[in-house]
């Protein structure tokens, strides 16, 4: 997300660190800053906010909070906790939500008698920094607040909606084939999965919920009265529709990543203040608010202990350092003794109502079911227990009766239970409990149980253990892990931090602020060397075999024009299938390399590849090789024979036009080679040298030198004469002959000339060859033939 330095500065009284330093702090402790762009009078950061922080940090306030957390600079008091709008309930606008799962909240604010006009320069500049063009003051205000707080907003021209006593806005699913012309003047056709905002009096669509507003009630210079919408839509639903319509907007991205419904009234407060400052007339007034909030929930809590933190990070951070980090972020936190806190919470819940499947986020602390009550008490002391009784049974450690302490759990199976569990669901799923379990209570003394059940008239009660077990079979006592280990930090998670849910999330939060650079390497315990499997051993053995025999290993593409497994979304029409053989790839590699044979200085082109191929039967490792047919050179038959000797089995290669392939996976099943650890392949140790894109030119030269001379001296001499265009050579013929003056040996070479930056001409090479000949003939007893 683009973040403006000047905009951030507005959140602080003190001067922010230099942009470069800020970028460094964010990169090392929060997000990667991908670029820092200096603009006229401002600096714009491009910050890579990943999905875990897209709930709260696709906004300037989110980044400002991070900066405050990481640098210790104090946020301005009024911006630290933005206020919610307060307004009377609207008398003229009603709002209804048909699908509460998809719309967790919708808040509408009616402002009358405003003036739509051009935005002030500061606002245009702020939006400009975000890469946005100014539309008008009202639309710009809604966009500004979105970039500031992360809450998308929409403004409707109220007079363009139908009034029928009141104006009515409804959130409902689209009908199949229903269409809408959006603000981008494009028409979108929708289906039942898409969510719409519609005019409740006409049932006509006004916008695609969370994605794009409609043309029908667009704000224009004629607009007098507006309805501002701040809503919260389900992330999955918005994502599905946005993807299907290929319509990703600033609003949809924020909803897709999920934001807290808690934001809407704060955003309306801010946008309303802004509109009063830039679109006001003498008569401007807030008429009222309509707010429907089906998705209301409690604040989450999560916890950790100091040793859990240090054990995961591998550091030794002190309690006071943790406390100071928590305080810097302004977290509400406490450090509790778990067992005492657990029992205390449990006792405070006596009298709460029973509700099967009650949510500990939405229904607590008024209603619980048996295991929800236990999980809630654990949450309060920073222990995350599984939610349902059977999982709690498996999660907790078994203890004997004599060890029972207040805060331990008792499990049971109800007589004629409607829904006993015989295996765990979420925790170590599938763990069997043969005898079944369906109920859990908390021991509050040696023989008293606190529990809630559908059979309890009064909801959560404390009763003697004997009474608890009257219509139940005991499944014994268990102890909540971590309950006696050490005190735990319990953090109340702010609404917007949807990423902080479990212990590990909090440990990351502390760890990154503390600084990962303070983690020092700690050696792992030494264990014995790990042995290879047969496939791994044989693969290396075979690769070594081919390389030692003068083959080069190639890797070619897995995508091909033809095959047996077709891709749904290929990159190109000639890459539609997964290869079912290595031959196509190695064939084309062979043809290319054959053209460069002289340049490469090779006497025979020899290639092999090992890799996965995909047939109707599935996936297997294939081995293929290619070998140029030459006189006196290596041959496929000899290669096969040697390979058979090496592996001690028969190897059947299928042959296709001089290319050989075998199913390596099934081949080695038959091999009973003794496994060994092999040393890794050793390369030349070279650094890559660019090769030319221009054609090369060849010249042959044969030189007589006195027998017994040093052959390498010939090449040195040739190089001296040929200069830098001489790139390679191959010795292709050697013979010795008697001369009157004594025995002489003839060496015949093929010389390769190539330029990195142009196509060479014959004339250029002729001149070079003249020079080479001159240099050689000058040597005593040497003669170019």
């Amino acid at each position: 997300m683009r973040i403006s330095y000047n905009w951030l500065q507005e959140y602080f009284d003190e001067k922010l660190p230099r942009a470069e330093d800020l970028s460094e702090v964010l990169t090392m402790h929060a997000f990667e800053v991908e670029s820092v762009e200096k603009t006229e009078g401002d600096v714009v950061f491009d910050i890579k906010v990943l999905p875990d922080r897209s709930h709260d940090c696709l906004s300037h306030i989110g980044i400002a909070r991070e900066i405050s957390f990481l640098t210790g600079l104090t946020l301005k008091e009024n911006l630290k906790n933005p206020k919610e709008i307060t307004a009377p309930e609207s008398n003229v606008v009603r709002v209804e939500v048909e699908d509460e799962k998809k719309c967790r909240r919708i808040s509408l604010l009616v402002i009358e008698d405003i003036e739509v006009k051009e935005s002030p320069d500061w606002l245009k500049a702020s939006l400009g920094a975000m890469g946005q063009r100014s539309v008008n003051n009202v639309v710009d205000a809604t966009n500004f607040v979105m970039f500031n707080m992360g809450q998308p907003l929409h403004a409707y021209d109220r007079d363009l909606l139908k009034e029928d006593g009141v104006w009515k806005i409804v959130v409902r699913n689209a009908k199949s084939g229903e269409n809408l012309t959006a603000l981008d003047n494009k028409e979108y056709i929708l289906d039942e999965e898409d969510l719409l905002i519609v005019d409740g009096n006409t049932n006509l669509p006004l916008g695609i919920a969370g994605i794009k507003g409609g043309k029908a009630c667009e704000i224009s210079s004629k607009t007098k009265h507006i309805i501002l919408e701040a809503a919260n839509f389900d992330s999955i639903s918005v994502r599905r529709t946005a993807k299907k319509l290929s319509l990703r907007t600033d609003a949809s991205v924020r909803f897709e990543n999920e934001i807290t419904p808690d934001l809407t009234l704060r955003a309306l407060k801010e946008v309303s203040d802004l509109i009063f400052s830039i679109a006001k007339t003498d008569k401007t007034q807030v008429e009222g608010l309509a707010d429907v909030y089906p998705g209301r929930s409690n604040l989450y809590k999560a916890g950790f202990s100091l040793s859990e933190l240090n054990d995961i990070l591998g550091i030794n951070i002190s309690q006071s350092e943790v406390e100071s980090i928590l305080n810097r972020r302004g977290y509400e936190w406490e450090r509790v003794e778990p067992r005492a806190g657990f029992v205390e919470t449990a006792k405070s819940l006596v009298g709460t109502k029973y509700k099967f499947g009650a949510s500990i986020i939405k229904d607590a602390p008024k209603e619980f079911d048996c295991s929800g009550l236990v999980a809630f008490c654990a949450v309060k002391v920073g222990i995350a227990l599984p939610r349902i009784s059977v999982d709690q049974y498996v999660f907790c450690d078994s203890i004997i009766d004599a060890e029972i302490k207040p805060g331990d759990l008792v499990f049971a199976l109800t007589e004629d239970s409607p829904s006993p569990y015989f295996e765990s669901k979420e925790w170590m799923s599938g763990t069997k409990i043969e005898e079944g379990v369906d109920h859990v209570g908390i021991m509050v003394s040696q023989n008293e149980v606190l529990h809630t059940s559908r059979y309890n008239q009064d909801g959560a009660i404390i009763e003697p253990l004997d009474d608890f077990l009257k219509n139940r079979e005991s499944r014994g006592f268990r102890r909540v892990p971590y309950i006696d280990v050490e005190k735990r930090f319990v953090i109340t998670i702010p609404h917007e931090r949807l990423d902080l849910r479990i212990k590990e999330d909090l440990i990351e939060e502390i760890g990154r602020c503390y600084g990962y650079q303070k983690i020092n390497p700690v050696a792992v315990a030494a264990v014995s060397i790990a042995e290879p499997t047969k496939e791994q051993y044989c693969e290396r053995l075979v690769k070594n075999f081919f390389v030692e025999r003068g083959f080069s290993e190639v890797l070619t593409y897995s995508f091909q024009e033809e095959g047996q497994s077709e891709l749904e979304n290929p990159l190109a029409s000639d890459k539609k299938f997964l290869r079912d053989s290595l031959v196509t790839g190695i064939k084309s590699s062979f043809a290319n390399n054959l053209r460069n044979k002289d340049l490469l200085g090779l006497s025979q082109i020899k290639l092999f590849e090992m890799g996965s191929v995909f047939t109707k039967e599935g996936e297997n490792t294939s081995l293929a090789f290619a070998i140029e047919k030459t006189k006196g050179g290596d041959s496929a038959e000899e290669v096969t024979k040697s390979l058979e000797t090496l592996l001690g089995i028969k190897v059947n290669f299928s042959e296709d036009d001089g290319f050989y392939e075998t199913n390596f996976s099934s081949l080695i099943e038959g091999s009973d080679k003794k496994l060994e650890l092999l040393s890794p392949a050793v390369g030349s140790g070279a650094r890559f040298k660019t090769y030319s894109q221009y054609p090369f030119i060849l010249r042959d030269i044969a030189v007589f030198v006195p027998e017994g001379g040093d052959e390498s001296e010939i090449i040195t001499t040739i190089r001296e004469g040929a200069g830098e265009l001489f790139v390679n050579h191959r010795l292709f013929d050697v013979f010795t002959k008697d001369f009157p003056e004594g025995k002489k040996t003839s060496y015949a070479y093929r010389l390769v000339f190539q330029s990195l930056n142009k196509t060479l001409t014959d004339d250029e090479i002729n001149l070079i060859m003249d020079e080479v000949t001159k240099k050689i003939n000058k040597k005593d007893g040497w003669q170019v033939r």
Partner: protein
Amino acid sequence: MSSNTDTQKGHFHPISLILQKTENIFRDLGFSVASGPEVETEYYNFDSLNIPAHHPARDMWDTFWLKPKEGGKLLRTHTSPVQVRYAESHTPPIRIIAPGKVFRHEATDATHEAQFYQLEGLMIDKEVSLANLKYVIEFYLEKLLDAKVETRFRPSFFPFVEPGVEVDMSCFKCRGEGCNTCKKTGWIEIMGAGMVHPKVLQAMKIDSRVYKGFAFGVGIDRLAMLKFGIPDVRMLYEGDLRMINQF
């Protein structure tokens, strides 16, 4: 380039040079080499790694799907599925690396290929920390690159780890002075890593009250390019001996 009438020298592909050395370094630390299929199921590639359907995190991996789409088969986008597959048949303590080919549905250029090699590392034991991760990564990079290497962790996000980090290594070319290899920063971004997410341990049927672990994923192509100075990732798959026979 060599030349001789009789014996012609063979050459390993640069990827093999890196992988074989990598395997030996890790075997010495007690890490077995594990493998898994290149055609994966949606479950192993995503769901088991705490990347549920419809989660925006799925956009972090552009995916090739096989026909028919309803079959839920895809080309693995990382080697992480091998973690879960391995844990299904092994109990902790676990030390593995899983090298292999992975695929991303993206336009190719000098630094992006639709197919490339990745190395997954996983260690699960009763006591494992980010400090152990740092040790193992530095041990590996120093041995592989034959140079003194420092690493630094930065916060990052991968759904299958928590905490998640991005690992930078000190530039082995300029030793932090700033050169072209490290874009003048002294650091090279080299891999993603972190502590295995409890949900992934659950998918592995490993008791996260008792065990924890670290995991990392490093691009082998990138290491090969850095070590050998290969300027364009596409060269690795052209089967061109003008490149391969240099090594």
